[in-house]
């Protein structure tokens, strides 16, 4: 059974499927991690996170590290080869425990080929979301790489691809642009043959704003990709994470509630170790159980009720998507042209193909707002915060906003609902 169908089945009846980030160089440890994920007190999907040498195609460093017994920050799926990966998955992956490969590569052709050879059918990323934040590769080249990758993947029956567009930069990118990129990457996948996909959104700094954003994403997916098997996937906050166990757990629980309210089928969790290092298997298992418990205690938003607030997230995202699609019927070309013109412009992104004229910031109540919109086609609907751009100290304050709130015992409950 394919990843997309498995998730749909596991999530039927309003269950939230929870999934870790997890990758180890040692195949035995990778298998142990997958088994522990499967057996956690939660409905789970498994993850094989690829190491960052494999991500950038540096096979020599992979082999050197494996030969020297050095640690890698993930599973070298290309270096180990399909037989080893099949052995890792044997008797573990299945319809009740779908496994996704996560990698972060602007050129994932070798990774996806290795994954398919090992019998896996699901991965994630996108031509923009895995190029701009994470590489120096020209966007045009990443678009070509991803077109090839999608077509390779589309040859596998019911193969599933998740866009990472809703997670760009992790923080300080206003939701409208996250959603627009998520949907645009989905349209790109569709153009290159995929019919099962998921749409990401990373928890930001305000639960009410996040509710509005997830609702806007669901609406746009339904409008623009009606013939596709889809689900939404929420990511627990990806910015600077609370350092206390209680703060980290509460932020994780808040993201699980966001996912349930918004009708997402899947949640990618973070752990109590996040502020310090790559989490252990046990820390991941604890995070999965914590998220599942929070999810069980939350109710989905009423069908058709719409978000409680409307700060024009949908309108801005729709305006951006429409402007991009007007530049070309080829979505890949439209993405490249739109970044060149600044119709797409990601705040704080250092990539040479990003115009770098936009800025996001937090307002006094923790909403993520636009400070500068550059040439983004949202002048009609954007409510700008004006003022001098951030200093390094103000940047750190904004980046650590959630850490401060969730690590402060005196404010316990402020973000709870």
């Amino acid at each position, binding site marked *: 059974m394919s990843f997309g169908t498995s998730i749909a089945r596991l999530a039927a009846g309003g269950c939230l499927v929870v999934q870790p980030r997890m990758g180890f160089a040692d195949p035995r440890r990778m298998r142990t991690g997958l088994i522990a994920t499967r057996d956690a007190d939660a409905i789970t999907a498994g993850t094989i996170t690829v190491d*960052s*040498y494999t*991500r*950038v195609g*540096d096979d020599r*460093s992979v082999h050197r*590290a494996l030969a020297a017994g*050095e*640690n*890698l*920050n993930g599973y070298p799926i290309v270096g180990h080869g399909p037989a080893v990966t099949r052995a890792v998955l044997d008797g573990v992956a299945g319809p009740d425990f779908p496994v996704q490969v996560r990698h*972060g590569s602007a050129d994932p052709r070798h990774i996806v080929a290795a994954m398919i050879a090992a019998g896996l059918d699901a991965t994630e990323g996108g031509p923009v979301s895995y190029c701009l*934040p*994470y*590489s*120096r590769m020209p966007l045009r080249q990443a678009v070509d790489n991803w077109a090839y990758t999608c077509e390779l993947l589309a040859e596998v029956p019911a193969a599933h691809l998740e866009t990472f567009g809703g997670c760009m*930069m*992790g*923080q300080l990118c206003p939701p409208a642009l996250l959603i627009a990129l998520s949907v645009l990457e989905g349209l790109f996948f569709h153009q290159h043959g995929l019919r099962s996909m998921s749409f990401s959104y990373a928890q930001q700094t305000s639960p009410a704003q996040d509710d509005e954003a997830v609702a806007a994403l669901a609406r746009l997916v339904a409008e623009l990709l009606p013939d596709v098997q889809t689900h939404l996937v929420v990511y627990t906050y990806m910015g600077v994470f609370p350092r206390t166990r209680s703060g980290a757990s509460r932020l994780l629980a808040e993201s699980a509630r966001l996912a349930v309210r918004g009708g997402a089928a899947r949640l990618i969790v973070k752990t109590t170790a996040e502020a*310090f*290092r*790559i989490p252990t298997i046990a820390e991941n298992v604890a995070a999965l159980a914590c998220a599942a418990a929070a999810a069980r205690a939350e109710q989905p938003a009423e069908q058709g009720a719409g978000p409680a607030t409307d700060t024009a997230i949908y309108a801005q995202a729709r305006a951006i998507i429409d402007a991009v699609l007007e530049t070309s019927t080829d979505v890949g070309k439209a993405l490249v042209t739109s970044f060149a013109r600044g119709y797409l412009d990601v705040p*704080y*992104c*250092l*990539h*040479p193909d990003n115009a770098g004229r936009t800025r996001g910031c937090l307002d006094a109540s923790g909403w993520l707002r636009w400070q500068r919109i550059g040439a983004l086609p949202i002048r009609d609907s954007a409510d700008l915060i004006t003022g001098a751009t*951030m*200093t*390094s100290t103000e*940047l*750190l304050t904004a*980046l650590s906003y959630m850490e401060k709130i969730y690590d402060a015992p005196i404010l316990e409950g402020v973000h709870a609902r």
Partner: protein
Amino acid sequence: MALDIVVTSTSSDSHTWNLVFLQLLLEESGHRVISLGACVPDAVLLQTTQQRRPDLIVISSVNGHGRQDGLRVIRALRACPQLAATPVVIGGKLDTIGSEGDSADVDLIAAGFNGVFTDDVAAFRQYVELLARAGRDGRVGVG
């Protein structure tokens, strides 16, 4: 003295908030910064720094491969005659196990780094300040 500084990640490190922060921090102190962004191949770093001959190279890594990547990069930098004496520092989260200030720092220093800063911005600022003062006295690059 205002320094010309190159801020860079390593070839395998895709994180950039650390770079955004460092650029703002150094620019606020009046220094001129070129940020090379995410996943900078060794060849790009070598080429850029050989051309520009900066007063300081700052390598920032938080993906857990910093020690391995740092050791490789510093040997390559030190092997270039033009960069043999250029101050080069590294900082961030340098391994996957969260160790700090242990013997591995000694290895990085022995390999040619002028400073190792794990999550210690104050010490890093102090280092840059001293370097800027030394530069004013005409001693940049000597130590």
